[in-house]
Structure formats: C-alpha cells, structure tokens
C-alpha cells in the first residue's frame, strides 16, 4: 500500500510475538487526516498491542512504522486506574505533561461537554465523565491524530451513542484522524469510515457494510452480529447528552429512539 500525502500514520507488516505466542502477525493499518478507522476484534486479538506499537510504546519484531513529520497524537488509554490516595483534580490531570492556561483547559473540557468538571476530583467521575475528560485532555495538545483505546468502556448505552457522536463531531470540526479500538461492534461500525477486523492478523477490512458481511467477520462474531449491524446503521432524530437527556441533532430521521437508561452517577 503506497502511503498517500495525507496519511498520518501507517504501519506495514507489523508482527510481534511473546515467547511462542503470536500477538500480531503481518498487520498493516493506516489512518489519513479526517478519517475514522476502527479496529475491532475479540478479546486477546491484539488490539491494544497494535495501539501500543503505533504509539511507539512497544517495538514490533518486524514491520515498518511511519508517521507524518511532526505528527501530534492525542492518546486516550483504555483505563485510568487512579489510586484514591492520589489527590488529583481534572485540571491537574489535563496538564500532567503539558502546560496550558486555565482558559485553554476549560475550553477543551467545554468542547467535550464537561466544562463544569474542571475542579472535580478525578476519582469522583463516572465512566462517561472520565472518558470525556480524557478526550478533552487529548484535545488539549491540538492533535492531528486521536488514538482512542476502548473509548466507551464503563459508559452506559445512552452515553455510548453520545460519545460516538462527539467523536464524529470532533473529527468534522478539527479535521483530525481518529484511530479507535473497540470490541463492541455495531455502534462503532456505524461511526467509522473504515473498519479493521483484527484477530492477531487482519481478518478483513473496509467499510462497515463490507466488513459486516464478510465471512471472516461473521465466523468471528456470529451471524447475529451481522444483523445487529444492519439495525444500527441508521440516523437518529435526536441524541442524548451525558446525563441521558434528549438533545437535538442536525439532520432528522424517523427511527425509534434507543432506550435511555439512568445515569450512573452525577456531579
């Protein structure tokens, strides 16, 4: 695959083994500016390993990794287990490795809809709030590429929809590339421009519709997953805010609203 001018990051033929166990075999992936690429696959498929290689945290045994010169990456890790014994406010968390004014911090938090949490203790946040804070944190560096490892983990159903819409909106507004990892299928696939189905090797890749009908995908996730995809590739006439409230969307459709559940915790 010839790298194009707008390619932000590209890994080719990446392989990694740990002892006798193959974690990744000959995996190629690339993200262009303004593109949402989603990596899906079952547990243990090597999704997080692939992310770590692309971030430069783990060296692959073989393969080639190229980044655009001066590429700024905003990374949202899969989990952020913070010991309760560490007193940490959101503002502090946001500026661990970069210095930014309070105004800039507040701006980034407002962009992900959690501006009111700037002085909250990190340990008091709900799953959805924490993900939005981490997303805002990644935005603070004005990234060309967002790398999101399981961005909806610990988020309830209504929050999931809202988060994916937010990620899509951020891409539209900023024109950055997005590389996202998930093990939940339907919603991600509806949001992605390209889907990479990973199970230590690349099973299949392409648009959500192509991957969803691919025999390898169906073998991995079962026929029900393929049907589920069809249900969720639709448009909503409204979305849901972080607390599950109904918020208007631009562009109307005629679909039933997804069941909104009660929020986990609140400020």
């Amino acid at each position, binding site marked *: 695959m010839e790298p194009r001018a707008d390619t932000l990051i590209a890994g080719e033929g990446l392989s990694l083994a740990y002892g006798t166990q193959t974690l990744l075999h000959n995996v190629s992936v690339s993200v262009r500016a303004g593109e949402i690429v989603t990596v899906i696959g079952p547990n243990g498929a090597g999704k997080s390993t692939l992310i770590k290689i692309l971030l430069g945290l783990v060296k692959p045994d073989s393969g080639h990794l190229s980044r655009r010169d001066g590429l700024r990456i905003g990374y949202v890790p899969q989990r952020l287990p913070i010991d309760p014994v*560490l*007193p*940490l*406010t959101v503002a502090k*968390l946001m500026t*661990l*490795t970069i210095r930014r004014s309070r105004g800039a911090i507040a701006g980034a938090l407002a962009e992900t809809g959690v501006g009111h949490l700037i002085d909250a203790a990190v340990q008091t946040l709900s799953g959805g709030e924490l993900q939005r804070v981490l997303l805002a944190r990644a935005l603070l560096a004005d990234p060309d590429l967002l790398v999101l490892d399981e961005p909806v983990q610990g988020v309830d159903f209504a929050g999931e929809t809202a988060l994916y819409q937010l990620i899509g909106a951020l891409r539209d507004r900023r024109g950055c590339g997005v590389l996202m990892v998930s093990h939940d299928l339907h919603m991600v696939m509806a949001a992605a421009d390209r889907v990479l189905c990973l199970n230590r090797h690349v099973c299949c890749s392409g648009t959500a519709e192509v991957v969803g009908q691919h025999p390898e995908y169906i073998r991995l996730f079962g026929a029900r997953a393929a049907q589920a995809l069809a249900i969720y590739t639709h448009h909503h006439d409204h979305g849901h805010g972080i607390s599950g409230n109904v918020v208007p969307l631009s562009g109307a459709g005629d679909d039933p609203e997804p069941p909104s559940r009660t929020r986990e915790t609140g400020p």
Partner: protein
Amino acid sequence: MLDDFLVRAMVAGVGVAIVAGPLGCFIVWRRMAYFGDTMSHSALLGVALGFLVNIQPMVGVVVVTMFIALVLISLQQRPWLSSDTLLGILSHSALSLGLVAVGLMAWLRLDLLSYLFGDILAVTRMDILWIYAGGAAILAALLAIWRPLLASTVHEDLARAEGVPAFRVKLIFMLLIALVIALAMKIVGVLLITSLLIIPAATARRFARTPEQMAVIAALIGAVAVVLGLQGSLHLDTPSGPSIVVAAGILFALSLLPFGRPKAT
C-alpha cells in the same frame, strides 16, 4: 544551641522528615510501600559492605539499596513470580544477609540495635550537616523530576506516549529513595524507615486536594511526629526511633476521625 543532644536529635529528625514526606507520597501513590521496605532492609548489608571495603557506610547503603532496586525491577519482568512474593524473598534475604555479614565480621564492633532501630540521640553536628545538605539536594532533584514522575505515576503508558522518559525518571526516583534511606538510617533505623516515608504521606491525604499540597502536608506531619516522638521518648524513657513511629501512627489514627470538612476524595 546544638550542644544539647535533644536539640540535635530534633533538628536532625525534622530534617529527615521534611525530605521523607514528599518522597513518601510518591511511594504511596505508586503502591511501592513494600518495595521501599525491601530497599531499606538491604541497607544493613550496605553498612557492612561499607566497613568491609573501608568506605563511608552511607555510600555502601546507597550502592546496595540501588542494586536491590535494580534486581527487583529486572526480576519483576518475569511473569512466573508475583511481585509480592519476590519482595518477600528479597526483603528478608537482604536483611538476613546483612545480619550474617555483620556477624561474620567479628572485628567489627557494631551496635546492631542502633542500625536496626536508629540512634537519633547520638546524632552529631556532622550528621546534621549531612542531613540538611543531602536533604536539600534530594528535594531539589525531586522538584526537577516532579512533573514527569507524577505523569508516569498516574499512567505510565500515557506519559510515555506523551514523551516522558518514564524509565529514566523511575531510576532517578529510586536513587532518591536510596539516598533518603541512607540519611534516615540513623534516625529511625533500617527496620522503621519505610514508616517515616509512608505514614505521614497517608496521614496527609485527607487534608490535600492536589499532589503538591499532600507533599507539603506530609513533610509537616512528619516533622510534628518527630518532635512528639522525641518528647515522648524523653519523658517515658522509651527508644527514640520507635517512639517517633508510634507518634506518626497516632497522628494517622487521628486523621481518620470524622472531624472538620468531609473527607476529600
């Protein structure tokens, strides 16, 4: 003023506590309590080694505790033994090895108890100079690595992805722990050093809203524990090192009481 042995003891103890507080916060945040314990237990071996090759015991302590820390890090890469078990093995092996080494060196008339539990009342002016000069250097170094160390404490991969040299920072941090162990040995002894690092830090938690606040408060609480402990030791005629630790423990217990503002989380 420094002619009085008790004043010398207080000045030395407070100096160590001020350095131990902020470092201890990172030990608590990084869940390294037992790790620090293992390092300090190996300090006796460093003392013995120092006498054997005729160098400053403090230098011996820093060399040996750093060596133990590096052995621990490399052994932790092996997934077949849990960290917990490894620390248990190394902690007690190192302590016993130190005791055996001292025992073998029959010519060395070492007051073992003073190394195990501290001998703060025998602190000299020279010791005080060491503690304050060394302590200032340790705090300056900690200040220099504060941001990257805090970032890699919160999430190591995230920090590395954002350009923090996490491993190098971790090594510097361990060197600082080794240095503070060498300084604190005379105050509370190798068996109790970890308590001076951990108890004030844990006590400071509920009064702090930021990491920096917690570090400062931990230093203050440690200093108060030293003063209270030494006073108690004088009035009750109890051993000084353990008295300081008991005072710190009481302060911690008090901090658990439901007074003042609701517990910060």
